[in-house]
């Protein structure tokens, strides 16, 4: 009845490797799914742009969806950032759409690229750079002297607190998506065949749709909240 666990498969597989400057580089399933998602988003953006060039006063179905997405992202950013929301629209919008698509991609049978720590660490580092850029731009020299407050002895703790931001951002996303992926692989690998047909849909709704949307939202929100904290007037 239940299989012996040989079919459980949620690891990242190498597709092929090549050497660059004496370093062996593997192209893995994460790259493949990243490529699929990026192509999907580029095609969507291209079609949406073509369509919005000749937007009609009474929107059709597609125009409605595009306007709804843009308005939703704008509302999300304006809720946190207030008056400086224009600076964040590009980055947050792009990251939100990318995370949403890649978290939902588990529904279509490809391994979500966000279940690879390399992808989420990259996103976390970009967010960290953004946070620190706005910190230095807004606070000038105070960005560095703030590390020695309230006491100079606390400098190591403050430094660790700053460095922990990209790690916790990326680990949160990675852990959530990976746990969903592993759980679905276990369910699919261990269940008898007649249960595989209907029952996993319930788990897909929770692990892929609910958890994926929440985590995409939380990543963008936390990036903005951390930036907002740095830009706060004292």
């Amino acid at each position: 009845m239940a299989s012996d666990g040989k079919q459980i498969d949620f690891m990242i597989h190498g597709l092929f490797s090549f050497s660059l400057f004496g370093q062996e580089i593997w192209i893995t399933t994460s790259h493949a799914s990243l490529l699929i998602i990026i192509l999907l988003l580029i095609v969507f953006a291209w079609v949406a742009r073509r369509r919005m060039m000749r937007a009609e006063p009474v929107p059709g179905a597609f125009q409605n969806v595009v306007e709804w997405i843009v308005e939703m992202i704008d509302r999300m950013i304006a809720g946190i950032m207030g008056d400086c929301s224009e600076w964040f629209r590009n980055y947050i919008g792009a990251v939100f759409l990318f995370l949403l698509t890649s978290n939902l991609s588990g529904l279509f049978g490809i391994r979500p690229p966000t279940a690879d720590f390399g992808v989420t660490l990259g996103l976390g580092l970009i967010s960290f750079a953004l946070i620190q850029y706005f910190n230095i731009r807004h606070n000038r020299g105070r960005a560095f002297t703030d590390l020695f407050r309230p006491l100079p002895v606390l400098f190591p703790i403050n430094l660790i607190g700053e460095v922990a931001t990209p790690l916790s951002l990326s680990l949160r996303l990675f852990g959530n998506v990976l746990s969903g992926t592993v759980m679905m692989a276990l369910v699919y690998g261990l269940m008898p065949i007649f249960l595989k047909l209907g029952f996993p849909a319930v788990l897909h709704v929770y692990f892929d749709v609910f958890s994926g949307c929440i985590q995409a939202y939380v990543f963008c929100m936390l990036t903005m909240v951390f930036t907002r904290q740095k830009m706060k007037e004292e």
Partner: protein
Amino acid sequence: MMSQITNEGLVLAFSALGAGIAMIAGLGPGIGQGIAAGQGAAAVGRNPGAKGDVTTTMLLGQAVAETTGLYSLAIAFILLFANPLLGRL
């Protein structure tokens, strides 16, 4: 009897145990998220007009509270699937 246990077997067995023990950390986020959800429900009951804001804040807080649990999950996954201790044998 004891001599039949290989070094690899011992390390693997205790790694599995360690993964299980690491996941005890799941208690903390569970309690924290439950408190956040309860307070959120109380806030919506007191002021139903602010349901959207309360839900957003609650989900954000819960996601932050979840982080410690995810650290332990990462440690459990490392022990189970990418065991660093086997290389030390």
